[in-house]
């Protein structure tokens, strides 16, 4: 936890709007974008599916990053918002026959409201207490989804099977590839939105609250409003990620959205670098691929191997991918000079 706090309070003192702390340079951004667009053309469908999940979890980590890195509030309850988004999309698609693309804004909106409302009582809590309150939300969610009253809609313990969409307009691409590009467009849109949000007046208000709540309120920032707003935005983005995840996996069930997912997202955020948005995708890659690597090393001890890798990462680069990126830039700068 201390690494997080350190990163959270370690705000750049020089720039009022720390653009560099938020984003990558234009050149790097374009390279990453080109790689994300071209890669699916050369790999198997299975890898494309993994890349889709990479983007989906990346979005969820990004949402947590806005909340924790932006406004300085903790959440271990992101899995609950993810679940609500996933179920909203699944239910609308399967029971109401709605188009998959239309279900996403609805999932986002419902989660925004849910998160905003949850943010109200959360206002009274801070730090570890808030983490604990959101933890309760994450623990309760799988059980709530099993409730008898809504079983008709949620499918109860058996879950719901979701139909995967075909590429529209007769485009000659596989379902996986279409879904990947669809997810990519949404991810880029949300990423641009998030970066702009954090650079805007609201974003500065978030960061002011993060750095010093009393000072922020003295400056005229409506602390209560902006704290709940951060919760709402974060929950909304997580909900969209949940909906996309449900469509990609083609299945929702209470067991898919346990506290383990919330902790994974938290790990992803820390590994990617708290408050550094491009790190979200790195964090997402960490939570998807490192367990596979750990399993390759030892089946019986996969959990322990994962723990060791995580420990090494936190120990060697406590600020995650952000630190690696900074060092890389520093080295590049030196090379150019000499």
């Amino acid at each position, binding site marked *: 936890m201390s690494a997080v706090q350190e990163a959270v309070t370690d705000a750049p003192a020089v720039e009022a709007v720390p653009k560099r702390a938020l984003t990558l340079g234009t050149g790097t951004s374009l390279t990453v974008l080109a790689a994300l667009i071209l890669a699916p053309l050369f790999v*198997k469908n299975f890898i494309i599916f993994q890349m889709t999940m990479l983007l989906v979890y990346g979005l969820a980590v990004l949402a947590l990053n806005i909340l924790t890195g932006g406004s300085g509030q903790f959440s271990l309850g992101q899995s609950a918002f993810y679940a609500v988004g996933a179920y909203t999309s699944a239910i609308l698609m399967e029971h109401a026959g709605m188009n998959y693309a239309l279900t996403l804004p609805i999932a986002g909106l419902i989660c925004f409201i849910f998160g905003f409302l949850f943010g109200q009582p959360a206002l009274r809590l801070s730090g570890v207490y808030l983490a604990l309150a959101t933890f309760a939300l994450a623990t309760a969610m799988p059980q709530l989804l099993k409730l008898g009253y809504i079983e008709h809609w949620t499918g109860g313990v058996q879950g719901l099977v979701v139909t995967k969409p075909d590429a529209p307009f007769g485009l000659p691409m596989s379902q996986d590839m279409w879904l990947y590009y669809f997810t990519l467009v949404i991810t880029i849109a949300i990423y641009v939105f998030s970066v702009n949000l954090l650079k805007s007046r609201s974003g500065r208000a978030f960061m002011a609250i993060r750095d010093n709540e009393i000072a922020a309120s003295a400056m005229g920032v409506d602390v209560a409003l902006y704290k709940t707003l951060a919760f709402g935005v974060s929950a909304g983005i997580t909900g969209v990620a949940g909906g996309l995840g449900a469509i990609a*996996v*083609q299945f929702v069930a209470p067991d898919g959205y346990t506290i383990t997912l919330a902790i994974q997202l938290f790990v992803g955020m820390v590994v990617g670098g708290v408050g550094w948005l491009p790190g979200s995708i790195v964090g997402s890659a960490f939570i998807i691929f490192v367990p596979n690597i750990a399993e390759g090393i030892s089946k019986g001890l996969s959990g322990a191997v994962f723990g060791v890798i995580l420990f090494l990462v936190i120990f060697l680069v406590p600020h995650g991918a952000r630190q690696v990126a900074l060092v890389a830039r520093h080295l590049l700068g030196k090379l150019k000079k000499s």
Partner: protein
Amino acid sequence: MHSRLNLPFAAVAATVIAFASTTSALAQKKYDTGATDSEIRIGNIMPYSGPASAYGVIGKTEAAYFNKINAEGGINGRKIKFISYDDGYSPPKAVEQARKLVESDEVLLIFNPLGTPSNSAIQKYMNAKKVPQLFVATGATKWNEPKEFPWTMGWQPSYQSEARIYAKYLLKEKPDAKISVLYQNDDFGKDYLKGLKDALGARASMVIAEESYETSEPTIDNHVVKLKASGADVFLSITTPKFAAQAIKKLAEIEWKPLHIVSNVSASVGSVIKPAGFENAQGILSAAYAKDGADAQWDDDAGMKKFLTFLQKYDPDGNKLDGSVVYGYGVAQTMVKVLEMCGDNLTRDNVMKQAASLKDFVPDTLLPGVKINTSPTDFAPIEQLQMMRFKGEKWELFGDIISGELSN
């Protein structure tokens, strides 16, 4: 590459099957992805980590069993390559692993993936890809739907059929029973409860009290006390091992002595009865389809001797008292039997065809009289169980082998 090959390949496979069924002696070598002259690749998904990691033993036992088959020369000269991945009991991860097995490792089939949620998540994909999802490790009832899901097949008796057997027993032996039920609030518990009520039919009102618990609860004591207060004289415990043992202890502690029935999942002497105390477990009823490694009555049994020799030689870490080890052995043996029946025609079509034509097959670890039978319309391999009563330090089987077939 797969899609280009598909059409002619399927046509050839179909003709070969038609051909083989008339003149089996002339069967040619036929392969789908995942099988060659020297190798058969089998995929598997297990929760080696996560909340259900205790079941990971099944995957290890299966790997050991296939090692034994390979050491003994393989199946018709082909070695088995068993690729087993961890899904941590998470459905999204199961989808990822299933796709990896089918599209990247190019396995012939996925064998015995564990867990109802994980199997539900991959069922549609497997059937769309036409890759066998064979002998799934879950007792849900929905795996026996050959029309809708011709590529998915179960193995163990379904929870509903087991519940049916208890209902039949109660209707016959104790028609005026007042039944109380403690069940786990998940697919296992709910499926089971449905089976019980369906089988009681018009007499479903015999169930006078129900309590559900979550696996996250540390103890179920208060549920047991509530059920006692309902005045019931039958206590049906639809619980997993830890909670079954707690219930047995609690019943003794509050001196409640109803007719106590424990689901087969928790009938293990080693992991439930012994920790709960033999003196507290006298007279408990359950039903079984496999032999219990902790039960001395099987020490001289030919099948169990083979099982124990296997453990000694290929799986020294395997605990014979662990029901999951006995399970893994039995299901792996069934898989090998199906692959042997396939002969040189190792297409996915033929694997399903052979899996659906098992006749009176008896793995070493099943109770005497319990046989595996399947047909193109019956994808539920094991449907028989026998009632048993706990006496002294072991289970005593009684009555006939009963079929829990849902059509009855």
